[in-house]
């Protein structure tokens, strides 16, 4: 549609050592396997325990960013919604929200990628490296949704 292939980043964050808190990171790993196998050079992944200031620099190179995180909210499987920038500063400030990162990126680097927030429902948060069974199912559903979303985005750009 536009002729330009968009650069896409899937950024998962959370702690895989705390059971379902690792959902975002595991989603990024699944997408990485998928894109590597298909040699989608313009789709990248990244992950960390939590979002930090420097992620504003990281997302500045992309046209579309999907932030993936585990959620305690009462959602069915997962939710994928557009993300708006926010200058609200959270209390800990060692970690920051994706909306804040988006806003900081626009302020510091004069670029604001289109962004989406993917919340995947989690249930248990103990010191274990394994997802709960239900969270695993949610991860699989969310992964398929993100794959389709990326494919749709790429098709529309043709």
């Amino acid at each position, binding site marked *: 549609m536009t002729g330009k292939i968009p650069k896409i980043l899937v950024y998962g964050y959370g702690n895989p050592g705390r059971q379902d808190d690792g959902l975002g990171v595991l989603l990024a790993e699944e997408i990485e396997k998928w894109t590597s196998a298909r040699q989608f050079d313009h789709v990248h992944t990244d992950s960390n325990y939590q979002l930090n200031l420097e992620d504003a*620099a990281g997302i500045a190179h992309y046209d579309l960013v999907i932030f993936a995180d585990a959620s305690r909210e009462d959602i069915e499987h997962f939710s994928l919604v557009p993300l708006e920038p926010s200058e609200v500063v959270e209390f*800990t400030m060692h970690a920051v929200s994706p909306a804040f990162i988006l806003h900081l990126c626009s302020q*510091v680097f004069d670029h604001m990628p289109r962004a989406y927030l993917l919340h995947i429902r989690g249930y248990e948060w103990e010191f274990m490296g394994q997802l709960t069974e239900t969270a695993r199912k949610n991860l699989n559903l969310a992964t398929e949704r993100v794959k389709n979303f990326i494919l749709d985005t790429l098709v529309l750009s043709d």
Partner: protein
Amino acid sequence: MGQKITIEPVTRVEGHGKVTIHLDNEGNIEQTRLHIVEFRGFERFVQGRPFWEMPVLVQRLCGICPVSHHLAAAKAVDMIVGAGTGEGLTPTGEKMRRLMHYGQIFQSHALHFFHLASPDLLFGIDSDPVKRNIINVAIQHRDLAVQGVMMRKYGQEVIKATAGKKIHGTGAIPGGINKHLSEEERDYLLHGDDYMNIDKMISWSQDALEFFKGYHKKNKAVIDDFAEFPTSHLSLVRKDGALDLYHGVLRAVDADGKKILHDVDYQEYFRYIDEEVRSWSYMKFPYLKEIGKKNGWYTVGPLARMNTAEFIDTPLAQKECEVFKQYNKGKPSNKPMHHHWGRLIEILHAAEKIKQLLNDTDLMEGELVTRGTKQYEGIGLIEAPRGTLFHHYKVGEDDMITMANLIVSTTNNNQPMNEAVNQVAKRVMTGKIEITEGMMNAVEVAIRAYDPCLSCATHALGQMPLEFEILDTDNNLIERKFKG
């Protein structure tokens, strides 16, 4: 009627803390306390796990400083596999770990200064809280914000190159390291474009120091008089007295600079340091045994390190260290806001060290691991960004952990933070009818100077916020204020 003011949450720190300030009927400060009310569980949690898991397991304690825990645990486990203390590793093993550590110091200090502290300095402690944040720094001081973001990113790239990945890095293993630095990684960190090269990082570190010194000149009251109180200082130092953030002997000096802990081997730290439990906080209160519970407490972190170390072995940071020491007339600085000064000198030192190491071929070739005869106890200390970090493990015949004791930097700074809260509260709140946001922020600024990680200090199992409360002398709640 007397009052008790509680500050909860304390903002721009990690974790959940609460400040209570008791006022008498005349509005005088009777008592102040920084309470840490999180659950402490990590030391129990690791018992029964195999010792070799510790470097990767304990870093899950905190998302802020996992690298410091990774390295302190690795140093302790080095002892258990018979590789000895810091000097026992191969040159490659030690230097790769040092590179990882300097990357951590660099990124953590950059985050603290640019993100957490600079809004207070740039806009004023009692400025509009809506504007007192990094976004406003980005709008009004764009260059500074770019530097802060990119310096963080550079430090993270150093960590990734040495630890293997950003999450649950596995670089440090019992007795050494599991990878060399590749030529590609070295060249990227040395000569990367888009700001990502070490010369730019050194130059920006110097700029940050100039910014601070310029601010200091114009705002001496904020930096020098904010909350001064006598304190001892403790850190690792190299055997010759140089600043060493990775390995050394334990030294403490008192408020006047007299040595009170004489360069002792940290494998015997328990002979010199103990921890006191107080009923109102989950965070313990460490102290030097010889001096006792009442007066044996000490400060750790950048300020303490500037006071304990005699010199710095990198030229640019050494020059800045001389300026610092000259300003304080050769005596220890007991001014909490000088933590920021020390932090910036250490950023520069870390950048210089990173450059030295990137040019060292030992990182790209050589033996990675040392092994020896198994021991049943290991202690690893490191100077984490926030101060001295202790990891102590005992293992059984089956290699499982039977005892773990972690004294993290923020725990070491427990009493100094309480003292700082007391000083500032007395200064800004005494006799005031209304407690303003600016006054509460002043108390937080004092705590924030120590860059505390409260989750870490209590080995907490989750994220928890903080609050302010006002109570009368009978502890009846009059008002509660949340800050966020």
